[in-house]
């Protein structure tokens, strides 16, 4: 972990450096236009300062995005419509609700698939095939259809995010529940273990690494689903609507701040599941 710190920091610093250069380069046109209108020369120093402090830059500089993030998180009351905490919570709550629904149903279906041959053969090919389909495309439709049925608020978005986390969990969990090999299953048979005992003491524990791996994929997919689900509602609330309204009004700093807030959210959700994985696997003596 520590061994990688220096290289990672170097790469991150290089990215930030490139970002600054790109910001100067991409915002230069506007500065030159302004200078030509006012009839003054642009020195290199002016170019740098002016490109990095525009109101609506083509590419906001890292410190502008950082300031946008800071303002969004700490600059105003949490209930304010301009607070990223407010919008982040709207997105997070829908994501969590959807993720819990989706992964819960996914685990249940996986258990059914493992124990019922007909279900395995009927459902499993479709679950695998559905991973190659751009499911996200139906997100706007689900929102609008549920809206016309009178279902509003958190539920439609949660359904989309549940749908997106559902299939990765099913596929991963089936693989996990099938992980015990014949020898281990035979051993339990010699112990005269019942089906429920085999499930609780062998299949479920050995599925845990697979489950957590697919939960990580699932929670990231859930978040994307919620964000896209927030687009067609006409930019009411949530990080997705911040992206959309930012692109309507050319508020680039707002877009970047919302994007980074979403990235932070995704990273912390994945990190929380990673932590849970570490703890669970440690207690079970499965640590790699």
């Amino acid at each position, binding site marked *: 972990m520590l061994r990688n710190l220096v290289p990672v920091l170097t790469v991150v610093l290089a990215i930030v450096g490139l970002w600054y250069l790109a910001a100067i380069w991409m915002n230069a046109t506007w500065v030159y236009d302004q200078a030509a209108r006012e009839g003054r020369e642009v020195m290199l120093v002016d170019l740098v300062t002016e490109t990095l402090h525009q109101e609506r830059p083509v590419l906001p500089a890292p410190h502008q995005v950082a300031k946008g993030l800071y303002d969004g998180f700490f600059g105003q009351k949490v209930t304010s419509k301009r607070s990223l905490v407010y919008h982040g919570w709207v997105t997070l709550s829908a994501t969590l609700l959807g993720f819990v629904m989706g992964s819960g149903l996914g685990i249940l279906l996986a258990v059914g698939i493992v124990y019922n041959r007909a279900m*395995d053969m*009927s459902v499993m090919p479709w679950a695998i095939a559905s991973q190659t389909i751009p499911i996200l495309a139906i997100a706007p439709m689900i929102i609008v259809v549920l809206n016309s049925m009178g279902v509003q608020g958190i539920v439609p978005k949660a359904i989309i995010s549940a749908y997106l986390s559902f299939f990765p969990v099913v596929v991963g969990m089936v693989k996990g529940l099938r992980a015990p090999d014949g020898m281990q299953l035979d051993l339990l048979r010699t112990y005269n273990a019942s089906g429920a005992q085999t499930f609780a003491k062998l299949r479920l524990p050995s599925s845990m690494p697979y489950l957590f791996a697919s939960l990580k994929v699932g929670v990231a997919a859930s978040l994307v689903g919620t964000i896209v689900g927030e687009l067609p509602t006409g930019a009411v609330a949530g990080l997705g609507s911040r992206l959309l309204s930012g692109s309507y009004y050319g508020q680039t700093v707002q877009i970047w701040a919302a*994007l980074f807030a979403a990235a932070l959210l995704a990273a912390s959700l994945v990190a929380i599941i990673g932590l849970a994985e570490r703890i669970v696997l440690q207690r079970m003596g499965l640590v790699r």
Partner: protein
Amino acid sequence: MMGLAIMAAVAAAGFVADWRLGLVLAVWFGAWTLNAGLAEGRGSWVRRVVPLIFGITLLVLWEMTVDLFGVNPVILPAPSAIWAQLISSLPTLWADFVQTFVKGALTGYVLGCGAAIGTAILIDRSPFLQRGLLPVGNFVAALPIVGIAPIMVMWFGFDWHSKAAVVVVMVFFPVLVNMVAGLKATEPMQRDLMATYSASYWQTLMKLRLPAALPFLFNGLKIATTLALIGAIVAEFFGSPIVGMGFRITAEIGRLGLPMIWAEIAVAALAGSAFYGLVALIEKRMTFWHPSQRRQ
């Protein structure tokens, strides 16, 4: 036998409550019993027929439910209505497909995967860069990258160029991470053999390490096919010319033209699985030597 009795009882109860409900339940249980019976059998054809029956049953139930209960087409159109729409608006769907898939997704896919493979080969010679870039790449691969769509639309305009740009960024990191892992997949023994042949770096790369990396690379390429289509469609939600699958979906939502949206989704699903299937086929041809490709 118990299961059969319970199913029959539930279906009968359905008939008593509402004959339409009973009919739907009867079809469902009938198809399920058929599948359960078939699943007991052995043979390769069973593995094909059972999922097919399941899929057809779902379509039949969908059609029956919509027709019998008179579901509003604004909420859920029947499969037959979607099919009729699909057939009648083939030229529109084809134009959308070309705009979104061929121009947006495919261009971005080729550029993004090419850039990722190139970067992987470049950083392969520097362990320092690998240790730095891989955690960053893994981190970025988990982020909601579709969010950059509005930025790309602002930079590259409404046409397909901005969609291709989104796709490039989306596919880059999964392919990069897999390719770097793949380039490490050779064993010391194999590399030693190349060294005893006095093979140059490029010879080792071309004859040993690139072929050995292929199974990993194709893993990334297959993940990227889905991402490419998603990126291209979602980017169109943020602004597009008046053609494209994402545009059509948002436009038809405004007019509540649900059959058209479902037709568009059917095309997207077909394109997505065909794209994935094509990459999987190429994988099979190119990595026939790998244990995972052997016939069981």
